[in-house]
């Protein structure tokens, strides 16, 4: 064993060992930083999977509404265009819908902001000034524009949920850029 070690390192100078040290230190640094990046990427991937489930839940919700089935939570039921208005019904606000979805009894109660565990699971917009928005779901209202691409506006807390409302779900990534997950119609 000693002979082998001598064979490998025989004739090497101090500077050679320093070089090897720097080489190993660099690889360890790349590994350490890379591991951190990779963990964040896998968390982001998990958030995307959760987002896809939210989109498919809303699609299911929408189908049930169309077939006049009973749906929960009631806070997410949109206001009908004509029938409900004539009856004097009030539209639900987005805030109450979102809270009922992600609160204690909601279907997405288990979801958390995996990138920023202390911050809310959804946010109004992806904002570099608000560090906690990284990893949060961003719901945006799509305004159909027949002449071009649809307009996008953030879903404010007081936004009223009405029938045929188009919503886009995105996730705010580590660099505070939106990654589109999907769109659904209420």
């Amino acid at each position: 064993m000693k002979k082998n070690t001598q064979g490998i390192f025989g004739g090497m100078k101090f500077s050679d060992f320093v070089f090897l040290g720097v080489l190993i230190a660099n690889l360890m640094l790349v590994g350490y930083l890379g591991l951190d990046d990779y963990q964040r990427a896998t968390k982001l991937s998990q958030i995307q999977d959760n987002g896809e489930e939210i989109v498919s839940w809303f699609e299911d919700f929408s189908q049930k509404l169309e077939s006049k089935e009973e749906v929960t939570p009631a806070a997410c039921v949109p206001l009908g265009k004509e029938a409900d208005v004539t009856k004097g019904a009030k539209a639900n606000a987005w805030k109450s819908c979102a809270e009922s979805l992600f609160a204690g009894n909601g279907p997405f109660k288990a979801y958390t902001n995996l990138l920023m565990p202390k911050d809310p699971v959804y946010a109004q917009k992806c904002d570099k000034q608000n560090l906690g928005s990284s990893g949060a779901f961003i719901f945006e209202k799509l305004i159909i524009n027949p002449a071009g691409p649809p307009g996008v506006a953030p879903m404010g807390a007081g936004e009223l949920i009405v029938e045929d409302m188009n919503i886009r779900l995105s996730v705010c990534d580590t660099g505070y850029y939106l990654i589109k997950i999907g769109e659904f119609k209420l």
Partner: protein
Amino acid sequence: MNLNTISIASLNLRLRKRLYDLFFNTHLKNNFHHQFEHFITYMIVLNMAGLVLEHIPIIYESREHLFHLFDVISLGIFTVEYVLRFYVAPEDSAFNSAKNPRFAFFKSPFALIDLISILPFYLGAFFDADLRVLRALRLLRLFKLFRALTPAVKDFREQNRGKSFRYKIYALVNETPTSGQLHQIFDFFIVVWVIISVLAVILESVHSINYHLHSEFMILDILAVAIFSTEYLMRMYSCTENPKYQAWLSGRLRNAASPTSLIDLFAVLPFYLETLLHHLFDLRFLRVFRLMRLLKLARYSGATQSLFIVIKREWPVMKASAFIMILLVMLAACLGYLFEHEAQPDKFENIPQSIYWAVVTLASVGYGDISPITPAGRAMTIVLALLGIGIFAIPAAILSSALSDQLRIEREKMMNELYHMLEDGVISAEEQELIEAEAKRLHLSKSELERLLEKAKVQMGVDHAAATSTANVGSQELDLKFLSTHPAVAAEQLKITISKLQQIMSVSSADELANYFGDPNNATPLQSALFQILLQNAEKQKGGS
């Protein structure tokens, strides 16, 4: 019956020898050994890529049958390779000294790896057991690469025996006389990673791909940075072996400031900066600089190096033409502003805006977003457009003519090298390799190279013939191959040699030479007989005088 057996056996031997020479004989030059090895290497690399992709559900699930088909084809190829190696083992110098060459091959490490890497599939086909675990053994196909690597490492160690550790690093990352095949493999490895990482950066920008493969791209980038940063450190540490950068600090700093080193640095820097400083700044834009890794390939391309030389050489001319262009652009912008500002204050708002219009017009791009409407402005645009064709073409013409000039110079340089190599009349194996490498660098086809070689040979032959006709021909050394095809030159050469012998006899002591040649241990009978003739001739001449 016996005759039949003998003819089958001899046919078998001939076939075995032929197959060995065709695909496995490393000593033959014009066989398919290199192509075969390269093909197997590419198949291994593709298999590894396939193995990785199989673990990405979005790619694998919808294309399972394609993966299976590729696996079957690969297995077929690797099986044929194994069977061929097994069959020709008695011809292989590594095994033919063994009592049973095929058994010696069978139990050799590489053959075992080859066998284990194909065995899981056959076991799965013939036995009903759940052998999914054995599929992991396909990873062993990676070790098949060592078949190419091991001899290269051995050769590298042999060639660099006794050299310092730093020199070995230098020889590994740079082309030196002792670099050998290992350096080629190192270069190939880096080139492959450059291509993989640049493709990854491009595909990352496609949302639908990045959405599903974000983590995989991340892993690729981390691996690429680990490889490129290691390469950078190796180059920086060993650069002092280059006479240009000998001083340990200033030499390294000068090396670090060279264009290729800067490219190497920019290829890895975005990763460190973005990861370490992403809390402070938005450094996402730096990711685009990862595409600069493509420039790393410039190191490996003779064409780009020729282009750099040309730009450096023609820099004063380029500067002059750039000056004329800038002058014309400024003049056009000022005139455009003067004629059009009043008519279109929103478009020709100021001179900087007019510069944009002038460049677009002079370069014959003509987007049309800004265009003159006044008669004077339009008249000027006609002149500008016509001038632009000529002025903007100047740098391109300079570059193209200088590049073809450079290629001509390099070919002439190569011809001179050929003349130099042919001075001794023969081209050795080393010289042949050098010629082929140079021809590859100059993008010469095989037929072009042969034509140049033939030209050099004819030229040298003419030189030889001319040399023999002159009085001082004795100073020329001719090769036997050349003399065998030129009897007149051979006769001349013989005469020169005889006169040389006569000269030696005339200036030497005849008694001492006679004593020496008298001893049968010192000379052959022919040499003694020749000496006697020369001695008699010398005595006759002395008597005559």
